């Protein structure tokens, strides 16, 4: 509206005075240059260059890498969160999430504890090739597998399998170091006695603190060192009932391979634990996707298809591996973080072709409707065309 008309409105002069005063005493926003970026970087940096400050040998197949940031404070994290490492092998740019195993109160470093996966690209690299002083790129800590004091309560049961102990280690260390009012029972499954990570520290903590109980569960016979009472077999409902006692009002957390989730969730539900009391960490793609419900029988895991990214030559992809893996192998840089279908960073548009998406993928209704998929949780069932 023209100012000469506006001037006739009641209160015009007052508003003008207000404007004058506000501009005189207001904020010089030129000084905001870089400020938002600095805030984001403080909490959620997109890139973090870490250096390996120390390497701790945990078991024959597991190491802890102690990561420091030479030139900045480490962003805060909550016990249970992970670091998404970004790596590059020749043409291939990839990433892997690793849970932080150190306590969040420890602001000087992040520990990640890596167990060897047979033929694993990144675990192999981290166990065999990296040295103290090497740099590692990562994104800021992420993940939702954390204790929420608003409704999780303080009677907690942790169910870990193999390297799935890592996030729990962070939670246990925080709780005990800081004297938090939480009561923890850890059921930790492994194949053999030598596979148990952090055994010495766990026994030491369990003997010292009343609010922490530690129950190792071994598939195979073997002697733990230091000796500690252990259960044989799997984490079954009988074991749960016996170890936990009163099952009501407890929050159950699970972290480990897909097989552990499938098995233990069934056991917990059989014991009458409601879904809201079971929390489960993402743990990457399952090993044999074709065994999942809804997988088409006609397609075998080693079937190979062609994936065309709009405007480039096709690349090969196996039905048994995720589209993300195929794209990375083909030299495409696709952002990723959880690699478990949860965070949607690896979202791509499926222009044509069919993919299998496991029931665990967390796809927005709108993405489903408009043809977007999470490439880390999509398996080619035909030749595909996608837009990255």
């Amino acid at each position, binding site marked *: 509206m023209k100012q000469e008309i506006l001037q006739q*409105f*009641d209160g015009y002069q007052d508003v003008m005075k207000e404007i004058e005063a506000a501009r005189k005493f207001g904020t010089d*926003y*030129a000084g905001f240059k870089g400020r938002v970026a600095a805030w984001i970087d403080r909490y959620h940096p997109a890139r973090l260059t870490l250096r390996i400050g120390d390497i701790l040998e945990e078991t024959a197949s597991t190491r802890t890498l102690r990561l420091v940031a030479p030139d900045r404070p480490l962003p805060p994290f909550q016990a249970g969160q992970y670091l998404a490492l970004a790596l590059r092998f020749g043409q291939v740019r990839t990433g892997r999430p690793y849970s932080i195993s150190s306590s969040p109160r420890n602001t000087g470093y992040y520990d990640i504890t890596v167990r060897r996966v047979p033929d694993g690209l990144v675990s192999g690299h981290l166990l065999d090739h990296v040295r103290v002083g090497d740099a590692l790129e990562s994104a800021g800590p992420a993940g939702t597998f*954390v204790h929420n004091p608003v409704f999780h309560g303080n009677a907690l049961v942790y169910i870990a399998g193999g390297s799935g102990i890592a996030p729990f280690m962070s939670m246990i260390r925080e709780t005990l170091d800081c004297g938090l009012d939480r009561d923890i029972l850890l059921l930790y499954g492994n194949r053999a006695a030598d596979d148990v990570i952090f055994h010495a520290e766990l026994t030491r903590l369990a003997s010292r603190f009343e609010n922490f109980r530690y129950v190792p569960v071994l598939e195979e016979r073997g002697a733990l060192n230091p000796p500690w009472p252990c259960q044989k077999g799997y984490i079954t409902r009988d074991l749960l009932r016996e170890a936990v006692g009163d099952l009501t009002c407890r929050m159950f957390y699970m972290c480990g391979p897909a097989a552990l989730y499938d098995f233990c969730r069934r056991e917990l539900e059989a014991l009458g634990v409601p879904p809201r009391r079971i929390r489960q960490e993402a743990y990457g793609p399952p090993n044999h996707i074709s065994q999942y419900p809804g997988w088409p029988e006609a397609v075998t895991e080693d079937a190979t298809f062609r994936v065309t*990214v709009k405007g480039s030559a096709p690349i090969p992809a196996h039905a048994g591996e995720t589209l993300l893996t195929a794209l990375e192998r083909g030299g495409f840089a*696709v952002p990723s973080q959880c690699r478990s279908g949860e965070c949607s960073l690896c979202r791509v548009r499926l222009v044509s072709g069919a993919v299998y998406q496991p029931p665990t993928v967390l796809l927005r209704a709108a993405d489903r409707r408009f043809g977007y998929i999470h490439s880390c949780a999509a398996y080619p069932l035909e030749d595909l065309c996608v837009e990255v």
Partner: protein
Amino acid sequence: MAARTAPEAVPLFAIVAGLPGKTEKSAFLTLVPPVLTGEVVWCILFTGCIRLMRMRLAELLEGLVELLEWLSPWAERRVPCSVRRLPWAVRRGVGRVGPVGRVGRVGRMKPMDKERVMSRYDVIVVGAGNGGLTAAATLAKAGVATLLLERHSVPGGCATSFCRGRFEFEVALHQLSGLGTAENPGPLRAVFEGLEVLDQLDLIVMEELYRTVGPDGMELTLTADRNAVIAELQRRFPHEKEAIAAFFEFLAAFFMEVVGLFYLKDPAPSRDSYPRAFSCLLKTTQEVLDQFFKDPVLCRALTAYWGYLGLPPRRMPFVDWAMMFLAYIEYKPQHIRGGSQMLSAALADTFLKYGGVVRYNCGAARIVVRDGQVEGVVDDQGELHLAKHVISNASRITTYADLIGREHLPDAAFAEMRGSSIGASAVTVYAGFDQSPDALGITHTTTFIGGCGSQDEEYEATRRLGCHDTTGLALTCYTRMDGGFSPPGTTQAALIMLQYADPWFKVPPEQYAAEKYKAADAMLARAEAVYPGLRDHLEEMEISSPITHLRYLGHPGGAFYGFDQHVKDSASFVSPKPPVDGLYLAGAWATSGGFQPTLDSGVRAARQVLKQLGK
């Protein structure tokens, strides 16, 4: 030196660095002729030989062609790039060409014509929030070559959703205003129709405005119908019966006057023809209410929507509240099945359908301005895209201070902005329950839970960390309108309180999570006073703070309504058009926040550009 930590950068960076005795700039410029003579082949082979030797010749040549294409606009046009920035840009550019050639080409380049090197568009839209999306879709539909850059991985900005466990959570949309129905269309309907999203969306009309629960046990529910609102208010406040009737008559007449002034743009308005507007347009809501009512409880029940505008009645412009309140009554609040993300996705789809190019995970780092004219945008991967028109959906502050820079703007731009204050953000508890709304006793879609003091005290509380007894809250139960957000027998809801970012900036980072939980805990306790036992059925929860909004939107203060909207901040006093040729703003920081205004602002910005383009 930088080249060592970024292996892909070796070849060209080495050339730049390897020309002795020259400044970076002249080195860069002298670089271009050798590129053209082919000397660069030698250079690249020499400096990056091991890596390059592994490449097939065809790949190498292809890479070189791309490199040449990429470099030529600087050679030809010398687009002024900040000298300090050059090596970085160059480095990134080469990264696309080297051994990982393919990486760069993934949707990264779409040259508009062959001699011009990198991409060129008619218009670039920065940000895919409501304003950016409607702007981009409008342009693409008009046949304008448009590039849309979005830093996040999904479109929508605020208008988005996220998933946890069995639940999908709506981030921002509580009640969509201004849409209306086919029989009684609101202004937003034409926008949706024009952008071909109306048919894509399943809209749910809410029959209720809200339930408000006051501190003193006062409880009132308003339906979305003028006569019903009047009747209910008169029943509850019999002592104000006449005043209520008079007020609603005034409101309707005021509404018509505002439409005449601002939408029909009467060229010669006078006090005689617009008496209510001349008297009340520049007043606050409370000032006008006080002319009619004595009962503060009535005023409070009437203005429960203040949180949707960000300022309490004593500061909120009367015209803003009146237009919103009447629009909700007239056209009824609506919900989109699948949430606002469905709208964002539909708008993005229209944009793509008409040939628009969108890049996610790709923010704008700089808007290139020369002699007061927009020349293009450099993205955060260092790539330059040329365009004479840019519509920014980033905040006005970010657009001026970060993307353009003080040196390219007249002083008046910052001088004007000084008068505005960064608006509120919020703390939201996104909650998934393992029982149905009925079982939980959540009877209404929208419940405003008043603080124990006045509305001014509620506003004061937005500047203090955490949730207090004086804090005002809103609980939106999405499952009551749309069961699709979670499995049957569960409930998805959001509990929100406005909060400014300032106190959050003072929290030490290691205390940040604890502060969020503390706030959420207190908010739930307040909600439980109205809907007891909620907490026992929580299955999933996520908490967003002003810092969360700052992170996902990139806005100062995480302010999702833009600047505080006092009377002095309205479009009548602040120029919406930035003083740079070819630059336009869309979204909350262009005018004011909320779904309807921001969706509308994008269309308006696009129309201005189309006019400039002669379309």
